[in-house]
């Protein structure tokens, strides 16, 4: 997928002025958050399970090569194949090669972020193969020619009216007088349209929430059942997964599943959790005849052992973006690439380079909610801070900003100087702002004053007041 992460500021401005987006984001603030709280409230062991889930992934990442080899041998034993891809281009070529060999014209797709990462749909289309998204949210954005704006709710930026307009424009064979006012009608229409696509597909492509080293299984977690129809009905099932999806055993998957759905949608379990191992067996009445796994690296192996190692624990639940005030204000598209929100602010620069996404780790208030809800205990603010450091050290930030940060660091490291300058600034600003009580325009602070006033200081700094007060109390106590 093409990135516009370098244009975060412009994207964010547009997003803030988009009334439909703002209406849709307003709905998000209630749904996911309340449900998650309720679900974890019903599970006293939730915090301990987060520790267990983190430990499983840490163990797996420390032994990733060994588990990947074991996983591959078990896939082969079950009659499937594993294809290794270093880059998005290699992954696309592998999928196209498989489709061509199978003479496939129609492909159905379950939800897969890796397909977004490698830009699969456009590539298949260029090569004469029609790929249809079957997750309702993904289908909606596909017919609108948009990218997903959330990793588990890709159409969360849209209102039902916008969806109804798109359905009318696309499903032209249907009665133009039909009512599409209620979400129910929209869901039914998509169900009807996509049923035919499931049966017509030659190849089904899904992602994977987990790969199980012990058994060679891939796991998908869905609510709609589209991922299952995608993989059961066609002749071949292709799984797109990145390296770090592997876990050792079925029991390990059980543990992480307990934190996944609760963190994502506030469900104890999603409606469908499916373990798939190889192609259909002799005597089976349904299922694909071929089973392929495309294992994508795309820079992940190079993250191991670095300060960004911990982002590889991410299980793509979306809790960090659901709880992020920045995401809630600008939505997912502003982030400009596949992965939005706090996890995207770390993963995007990791995969496409900080020089192409330097605004993302800066677009955070460091309030820490993402870290506090992350089921895998990824210290997201810390990882974003590492990218801010790179941003500064590699001179990617604009000169004025680097100069400002340098000056700040110089002063902040010298407390007497800091206190002196702060006292001077407070007095000067206090005097200047005495008349109105606040500033509407200040040199060097126009980004602040353009949208809100800056209250004028009272003339004394906190440090001064504190010092004075503690002296007064002391002398009071002496008396």
């Amino acid at each position, binding site marked *: 997928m093409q990135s516009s992460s370098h244009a975060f500021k412009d994207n964010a401005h547009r997003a803030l002025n988009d009334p439909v987006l703002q209406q849709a984001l307003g709905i998000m603030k209630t749904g996911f958050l309340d449900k998650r709280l309720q679900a974890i409230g019903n599970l006293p062991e939730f915090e301990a399970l987060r520790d267990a889930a983190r430990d499983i992934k840490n163990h797996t990442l420390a032994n990733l090569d060994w588990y990947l080899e074991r996983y591959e041998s078990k896939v082969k034993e079950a009659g499937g194949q594993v294809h290794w*891809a270093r880059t998005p281009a290699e992954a696309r070529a592998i999928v196209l090669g498989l489709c061509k060999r199978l003479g496939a014209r129609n492909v159905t797709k379950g939800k897969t972020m890796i397909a977004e990462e490698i830009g699969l749909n456009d590539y298949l289309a260029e090569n004469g193969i029609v790929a249809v998204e079957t997750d309702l949210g993904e289908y909606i954005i596909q017919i609108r020619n948009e990218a997903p704006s959330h990793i588990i709710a890709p159409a969360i930026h849209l209102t039902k009216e916008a969806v109804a307009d798109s359905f009318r424009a696309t499903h032209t064979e249907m009665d133009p007088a039909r009512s599409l006012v209620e979400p129910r009608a929209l869901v039914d229409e998509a169900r009807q349209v996509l049923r035919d696509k499931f049966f017509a597909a030659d190849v089904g492509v899904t992602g994977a929430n987990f790969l199980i080293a012990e058994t060679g299984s891939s796991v998908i977690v869905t609510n709609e059942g589209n991922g299952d129809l995608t993989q059961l009905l066609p002749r071949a099932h292709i799984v797109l997964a990145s390296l770090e999806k592997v876990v050792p055993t079925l029991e390990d998957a059980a543990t992480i599943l307990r934190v996944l759905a609760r963190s994502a949608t506030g469900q104890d379990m999603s409606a469908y959790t499916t373990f798939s191992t190889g192609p259909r067996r002799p005597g089976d009445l349904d299922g694909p005849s071929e089973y392929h796994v495309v294992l994508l690296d795309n820079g992940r192996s190079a993250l191991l052992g670095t300060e960004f190692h911990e982002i590889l624990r991410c299980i793509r639940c979306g809790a960090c973006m659901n709880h992020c005030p920045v995401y809630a204000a600008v939505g997912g598209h502003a982030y400009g690439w596949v992965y939005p929100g706090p996890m995207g602010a770390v993963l995007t620069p990791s995969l496409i380079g900080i020089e192409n996404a330097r605004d993302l780790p800066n677009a955070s208030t460091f309030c820490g909610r993402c870290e506090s809800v992350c089921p895998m205990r990824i210290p997201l603010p810390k990882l974003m801070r590492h990218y801010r450091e790179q941003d500064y050290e590699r001179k990617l930030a604009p000169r004025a900003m680097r100069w400002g940060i340098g000056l700040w660091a110089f002063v902040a490291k010298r407390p007497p100087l800091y206190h002196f300058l702060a006292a001077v600034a407070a007095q000067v600003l206090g005097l200047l702002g005495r008349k109105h009580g606040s500033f509407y325009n200040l040199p060097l602070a126009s980004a602040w004053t353009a949208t809100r006033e800056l209250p004028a200081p009272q003339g004394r700094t906190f440090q001064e007041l504190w010092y004075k007060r503690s002296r007064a109390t002391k002398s009071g106590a002496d008396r």
Partner: protein
Amino acid sequence: MSDAREQILGGVRRSLKRGALEGEHAAALEDRLRRHAPNLVPGRAFGIAPRQLVDLFETQASEVLATVARVRSLDAVPDAVAEYLAGRNLPPEMTMAPDPLLDRAPWGKRPLLKIRRGAADGKEPAGVSAAFAAIAETGTLMLTSGKDSPATLNFLPDTHIVVLPASRMVGPMEAAWARLRHAFAPPDEDIGGSSMPRTINFITGPSRTGDIEQKIEMGAHGPRRLHIIVVEDETLR
């Protein structure tokens, strides 16, 4: 693409600052897989009596908008199916898994039920399957694909009816894995690769979506209704 494979694995080892794992370290990982020990298991469904497990399952499954009926024996299953369909004004037509458990129910008692056996074709209004196990902790059914149990039945029909002997009820998912290992692993080996059923479906309520304005609608692509018939067999008596 064996180049890619070697390069990726080599890259992983370089990043982890070591070579390929062997000797004791590799043996420890082998041992971890062989033991496949459960991690922390929540107390919710742990160490409770069979009847309470069924009660917990019913509560949890109802929570996710499945319906649950209980019958005394397999003899009562055809009546339960017919009554469920009639009660919802659904046609008495279905595709049923060719499962030996379902063969043992006296379907002849309900001659008006139109029953086809095999995989689903998408035209049947209802599908009937037997569960391999069920997880009380979350109200989840576990179905394994095979010559007796086509997985398409779990997704294509509008109504999915699942017959579940109470003896197949377990507490947590870890206990379901133990049952699977016991049933499918070759003698003196553990499960994996070809001994795993092709598809294992964990089903927790009917199909749903929240993709439009986060409003939950049932029956997105899979069944709109999930009805579970618990057969209270000998374990509960």
